[in-house]
């Protein structure tokens, strides 16, 4: 009796692995031999089989698809975006994918600086010396009745209002701009 009890204890931890066929052959032989004469361990094996069936009922092969109908499109979009980034700078993308993202703030700051400098230079050109300011290209837009496409506008013709960037009231004889 003691031998059998010890034997049950020995194999109890192997029964679930026996049922799922995860034992080495010599272990499986020992467990099989024991279960041939032990009803309690056979009942334990049956319980393991029932549990295995319960878990297997959640298998992907038993369950329907739950993904969005746009699942594939989402993958395509991500891949296309990745390809475009790689095309823009293949070496940078391959070497350090996050580097361009890190450089973006610096690039934006540089662009802002350049824009500010251009604005300042333009403002200085317009208002810096009112008496001798150079003539301004007119791009074919007629102000004050003069119609000289491609020529320059005399400085006395208002180009920008005194208030700044808002255009001065449209002269009465100004033509509509055709776009």
């Amino acid at each position: 009796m003691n031998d059998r009890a010890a034997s049950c204890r020995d194999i109890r931890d192997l029964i679930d692995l026996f049922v799922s066929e995860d034992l080495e052959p010599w272990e499986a032989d020992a467990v099989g031999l024991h279960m041939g004469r032990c009803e309690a361990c056979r009942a334990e094996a049956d319980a393991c089989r029932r549990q295995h069936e319960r878990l297997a009922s959640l298998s992907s092969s038993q369950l329907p698809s739950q993904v969005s109908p746009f699942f594939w499109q989402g993958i395509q979009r991500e891949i296309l975006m990745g390809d475009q980034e790689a095309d823009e700078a293949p070496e940078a993308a391959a070497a350090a994918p996050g580097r361009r993202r890190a450089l973006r703030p610096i690039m934006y700051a540089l662009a802002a600086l350049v824009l500010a400098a251009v604005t300042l230079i333009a403002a200085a050109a317009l208002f810096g010396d009112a008496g001798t300011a150079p003539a301004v290209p007119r791009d074919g837009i007629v102000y004050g009745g003069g119609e000289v496409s491609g020529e320059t506008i005399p400085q006395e013709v208002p180009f920008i209002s005194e208030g700044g960037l808002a255009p001065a009231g449209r002269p009465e004889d100004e033509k509509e701009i055709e776009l």
Partner: protein
Amino acid sequence: MEIGPVGDPPRGKRSCFGDRNLADGDLVLRMRSGDTDAFRTLVERHTNKAYWTAYNVVRSHEDAQDIAQEAFIRVYRFIDRYDNRQRFSTWLYQIVVNLAIDNLRRRKNPAALERVAEAVSEDAGPVARAELTEQQERVWEVLGSVPDQYRVILVLRDIEGLPSQEVADVLNVNHATVRWRLHRGRALFKDAWEARFGPGAG
């Protein structure tokens, strides 16, 4: 490799009608030579597997879908790293499980955990669990009470039915570790089941 324009291309214009009959390894070879239809066939063939594996680990519909999508994007981007001697599904399971474990790790901070708990209780209900029977629902609930490292093993071995050696390959652990965790995970599941429904239930 270039992938076709976004949107569902007309089926009649797809180049490889025979793709669906090819083995995964052959589809991978075609992918490497630039056949995007082969990639699409792989995605269609394994989407359910990727989704439900992720779902049973992370227990959130939204997260599982994101993980499945990200897994296929990685397959596409890193297809050159795939070792042909390995089964494609093993490689895919590896990617899915790693992403799922990362997802679980991110939840470890309390704020994220709270958000996920809300997401699980809301989105796991009507969307993903709509098709589960009462019995499957009970199994799913008990499975959720099993700690992550054992749940992953149960999902791969007992739910998806991978051989133990393949589970070891997916998780990059040895066979003895799989056996131990499998045994322990089953015992934990059994205890939780009996605590909830009684020893003779189901």
